[in-house]
């Protein structure tokens, strides 16, 4: 519908809306997070739902303990290799449409613990992530900001066309491989369907020893 006509109608007291708008409006305003915390960031996630920051204002305080009823998975904290299969399984158990916020350095890339042998370097190796929040831990406001970013993202999603969200594409997967425990590492160590790392320009010049101390 034409934007001008719509605003004209609104002035007359008629709210015109399309199915897409209604659908997106409903989805974005009713993001029920999975009651699921991993580490330090989970405390800030709890703090964000507490009185001072009050995520409930956005209708996002209904922390559902069962993945079936949740829309939003906030991966809040370090995902260890021992935990990663359960996180993927939880994601697989969620009903579409589902979103993932990767909260904090650890969930994005392993963060400060990425040097550890049992730390997964980013949950996006196995599941698609919609919004990343850097910070260690991000402030509760940052989580609310991410929630709003996600809401804006949902708001822009068309129902048809090539840009439609993943859950509306019939051939796109809604379940992903659950990694298995190997002898030294997870198997597979990443899901290439989801995760393609770009090549970073690693300088081959030996600058590392210069200027120390």
């Amino acid at each position, binding site marked *: 519908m034409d934007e001008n006509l719509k605003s004209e109608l609104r002035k007359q007291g008629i709210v015109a809306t399309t199915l897409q708008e209604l659908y997106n409006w409903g989805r974005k305003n009713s993001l029920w997070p999975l009651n699921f915390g991993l580490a330090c960031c989970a405390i800030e996630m709890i703090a964000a739902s*507490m009185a001072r920051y009050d995520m409930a204002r956005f209708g996002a305080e209904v*922390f559902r303990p069962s993945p079936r009823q949740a829309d939003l998975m906030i991966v809040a904290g370090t995902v260890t290799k*021992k*935990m990663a299969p359960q996180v993927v399984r939880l994601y697989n158990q969620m009903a579409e449409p589902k979103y993932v916020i990767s909260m904090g350095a650890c969930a994005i890339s392993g963060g*400060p613990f990425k040097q550890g042998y049992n730390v997964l370097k980013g949950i996006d190796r196995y599941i698609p992530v919609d919004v990343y929040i850097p910070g260690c831990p991000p402030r509760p406001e940052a989580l609310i900001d991410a929630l709003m970013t996600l809401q804006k993202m949902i708001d822009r999603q068309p129902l048809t066309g090539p840009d439609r969200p993943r859950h509306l594409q019939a051939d796109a997967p809604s379940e992903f491989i659950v990694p298995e425990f190997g002898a030294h590492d997870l198997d597979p160590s990443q899901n290439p369907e989801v995760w393609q790392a770009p090549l970073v320009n690693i300088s081959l010049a030996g600058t590392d020893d210069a200027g120390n101390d």
Partner: protein
Amino acid sequence: MSTATEAIRIIPKSPGANDEGQWLEVSMGPQHPSTHGVFRMDVVLDGERIVKLKPVFGYLHRNHEKIAENESYLGSMPYTDRLDYFCSLTNNWAYALAVEKLAGIQVPERAEYIRIITAELTRFQNHACLIGFLTQDMGASGTPLMYAFREREKILDLFESLTGARMMCNYMRFGGCRVDLPAGWIEQARAAVASFPRFLDEFEQLLASNEILMARTQGVGVLSKEFAVNAGVSGPVLRASGVNYDVRKADKYGIYDRFAFKIPLGEHGDTYDRYMVRLLEMRESLKILELALRDIPAGPIVDPKTKIRGFRPKPGEAYAHIEAPKGDLGFYLISDGSSNPYRYRVRPPSLVNLTVLEELCIGHNVADVVVILGSIDIVMGEVDR
């Protein structure tokens, strides 16, 4: 103490063989609303009664000790924040204390006062949140937790204006603290401390005499004195069983001998005692805070001789422990003279306190397990490290 040479091991009563068909194995966690993080309990149920319970750890094992062995002494300081992420400042203190012992560093008086103030504030907010989570586990739809977090935010504001971060303070340094108190901080802290007794009164009003709470906690998860000592339980859980052991009194680290405070002791060792001992400890913390905020002297905040960079203690080893809110938190360091510790070990109170979990839970209901676990007060960052 038991007369036998064996450690106390309360062996669960072996149920009849024909019962086994009725048993239900349930895995609680690692994603469970009230396992306080990623903790799993493999529970065998007879109806709703617990027959067996095996804790499973490691879902948050993020290799803290290994990383610290490849990190400079200073570089490990921010990692200690993330051990028990409720109480970064006490973790900082324990680690700083261990390094100070290892290198023989003295701490100026003002820094000692700041350390005590921050540690007691940490203890207060930890206990407040714990009680909130405990009642949450009992199903109190968040109201007490919200009140606890309301007060916690006041303390976090103080932490932020002092250290720059809400949770991960990274504040203490070997031989003192990183920055001095900003202007007006003492007044702000005094005002906050003055407002806490009212909060505690409210909290007791809300819950302490609540019949449902008493019915849910009294006589649930009784931990005997002897067993508690033998299992190395520490902190409020130990004192709720009636053992008078507080590292603040036993070791007198820092300048705790200058403050008059008392140690509340429980008699029954049940969940209610663990809950109440923490409430009373919060009141004692307030006493220490009032005194410390009154007496804090002027002066330097860090030993000027210690270097930030290139810190290399002589070969040797040191173990230091403090009374962290969760219990006896120790750091054990072995130096080989290089800039990284050769061995860096954390003695996690949460992990050791979990030793008693199975014995406390057997014979109780599923609903009691979450309450007992809540009253032990674990943080997975510290259990798994």
